[in-house]
């Protein structure tokens, strides 16, 4: 029981220290520190391969020849980048990879968002079946479809000397068509964009329809601006897959003018020898565009996945 009998006495008394409150604050602070340390360690683990790539790219050949080279290069040989660039026509390769990546961004965004919108917001009979078909095709590995895809390209009617039945010529083989069309839109992009469109308010569409807007305008002007994080995510993924594509361009082209940057990197990996210094220098150069893009758009990129329910 308290010894304070009057209101005056009670008012003079200073409050006790908020012990519980302080301990809660301290535990929150400790929790945050632990979280930051854990995240820092995890980030270091994630970034370590990139650091190793850079260090190997600038390591002198003599240092690479050691059984256990030091983690930090003792000397920095930036000439590796020059030698790597001279080993193959990387200028042409980079240009081609960029064109493929850029065109795929445009086509994937246009076709993928149109398909995604239709599957999410338009009512038609086979909608669920078509969506299930797309999901099913995502489960088939590329290696299982590479020969059928190649045959489609090879026997494309009325192209590359082929007749109406796709016979007699080369079709799209060794042309830009083969590099650009098969990857113009993918099931994953359609799926991802559909997930974004599903989260948009249908009332907006109905209101727009009442106002007399056509369906393409509703898709383009009303709903699509609401899913910018999704568009950015898909654009980044499309550019990345175009930029890093290796096997398909190798299979459908034979001319050096149509080869891509990843093919150039294979120059440094021969049957009985790998030139690690040049390979890493080339890889570092080829990774720069993707790293820069990710640094610029990482917030949208992460949001894109979070909002679509893919984590």
């Amino acid at each position, binding site marked *: 029981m308290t010894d304070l009998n009057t209101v005056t006495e009670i008012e003079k008394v200073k409050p006790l220290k908020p012990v519980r409150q302080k301990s809660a604050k301290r535990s929150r602070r400790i929790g945050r520190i632990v979280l930051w340390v854990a995240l820092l360690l995890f980030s270091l683990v994630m970034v370590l391969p990139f650091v190793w790539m850079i260090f190997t790219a600038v390591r002198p050949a003599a240092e690479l*020849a050691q059984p256990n080279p030091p983690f930090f290069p003792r000397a920095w040989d930036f000439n590796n980048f020059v030698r790597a660039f001279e080993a193959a026509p990387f200028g042409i390769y980079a240009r081609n990879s960029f064109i493929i990546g850029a065109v795929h961004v445009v086509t994937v965004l246009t076709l993928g968002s149109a398909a995604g919108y239709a599957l999410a917001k338009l009512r038609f009979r086979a909608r669920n079946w078509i969506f299930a078909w797309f999901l099913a095709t995502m489960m088939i590995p590329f290696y299982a479809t590479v020969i059928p895809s190649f045959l489609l390209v090879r026997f494309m009617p009325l192209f590359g000397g082929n007749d109406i039945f796709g016979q007699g010529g080369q079709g799209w083989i060794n042309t830009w068509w083969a590099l650009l069309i098969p990857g113009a839109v993918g099931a994953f992009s359609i799926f991802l964009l559909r997930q974004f469109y599903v989260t948009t308010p249908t009332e907006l569409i109905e209101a727009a329809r009442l106002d007399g807007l056509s369906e393409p305008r509703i898709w383009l002007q009303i709903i699509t601006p609401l899913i910018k994080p999704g568009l950015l995510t898909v654009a980044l993924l499309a550019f990345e897959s175009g930029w890093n594509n290796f096997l398909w361009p190798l299979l459908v082209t034979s001319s050096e003018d149509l080869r891509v940057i990843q093919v150039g990197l294979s120059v440094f990996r021969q*049957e009985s020898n*790998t030139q690690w210094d040049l390979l890493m220098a080339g890889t570092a150069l080829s990774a720069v565009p993707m790293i820069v893009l990710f640094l610029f758009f990482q917030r949208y990129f992460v949001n894109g996945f979070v909002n679509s329910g893919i984590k």
Partner: protein
Amino acid sequence: MLNRRQLLGAMGAAGIGIAATACSTGGGQPAPGATAAPTGELKGTVHIVTPEFAGTDGKEAFEGKILKAFTDKHPGVTFQVDYTPWDKLNEKLSTLVAGGQPSDLLMTGMGWTEPFAHKKVLTKLDKNAVLGDAKVLDALVKQGSFNGDMYAMPFLLESRPFAYRKDLFEKFQISTTEPKSMEEFNSLLEEVKSKSGLVPLDMLGQNLRQIWGQMIFAFGGTQFSPDGMSITFDQEPGVKALQWMVDLQNKGLSDFNFKVPTGQPSAYQQDKTLMAWGSSGAWPQWLKQTPQLTEEGKLGIMLMPTVNGSKVLYQGGTLVGLSTRSQNSAAATAVMQHLITPDALTQASLFSGKVPARSDLPPNPELAKNKLLDFSVDNLQYSVTDGGTPAWMEIRGKMDPELEAAVTGKKSVADTIASLKKIAEDAIGRIK
């Protein structure tokens, strides 16, 4: 909302669609008769797929020197060369074949001839017309043959003799006399181990499929029947060869854990072993990383003796075949003839560091600097390689994990042979 039944139905439909697409293929046509020597004026484009001559320097060596020498004589011929890395060459050739348009000339690996000849991708070659007066040993011609006929011309080889530290052998008072039998070779390993205290041989850290392939021949056996349609590696030599590899590991005579990434200094280069199953293709790496090991006084080279008193020298390498779909077989055949000429072959060897396939090349001081290559040229008659079945392309990639399980003690030799037998028989069954 999509229910499970709808999803499974769509998946099934997708599978049927893809299977139907995959069935429409434009494979090879029946092989015509053997190619003869081309006559008359040559013209047109010759398409070549090659895993060699990568990069700017490679293009210069191949197109700027080797093929230019051909076009100087035949100005009507032009070339389109498709440079494809080794690890994707099979995919490249498979898609070209499926599309019905392989290039005129295909460069393939050792052991690839039977699969591609069986699929009617390669044309039967007239050995005399293609090789002319080039001395290419029968052992090598056999590796480009299928059912007794030549389908691919040996071009560049990657040999695997044994290298050893001559200076350390002398230091530890180990005889440098080349072993004449398998028992002597095994005794040598034991002696190296007891006198040096080191693991004697850097071998199991390398390609186990190739090691087993060589050792089956060393034990007097083969992997497949002459027609390639049944296996023989489950017989005594095959079993003994695998047991020999397992014993190497168990007795500490070689160590699977000495495996290093390609391009990094090997255990032999790191002075962990006194002997190595070397590779002529690794010579430039030795020169660059450990030049002291390439000096005369430090490098000895020997071959694996066999149970019947002969020797074996494992060969990887590159062969050149003519496509059955070639639109310009006369010019393509002439190019093959050109590639085996001394000048062209020397240029190719100088660039690639690989062993030239003909044994009568004039001496070349630059080539002779690669002592593993030089030694191999003198011993081409002992060449062996693995493979020998039309189903090889499917089998080869599945062998390493099985052999690794045996060497590391996860699986018995008998079980490993049984697994390999099943893999091989399933693959052969699919092409019968």
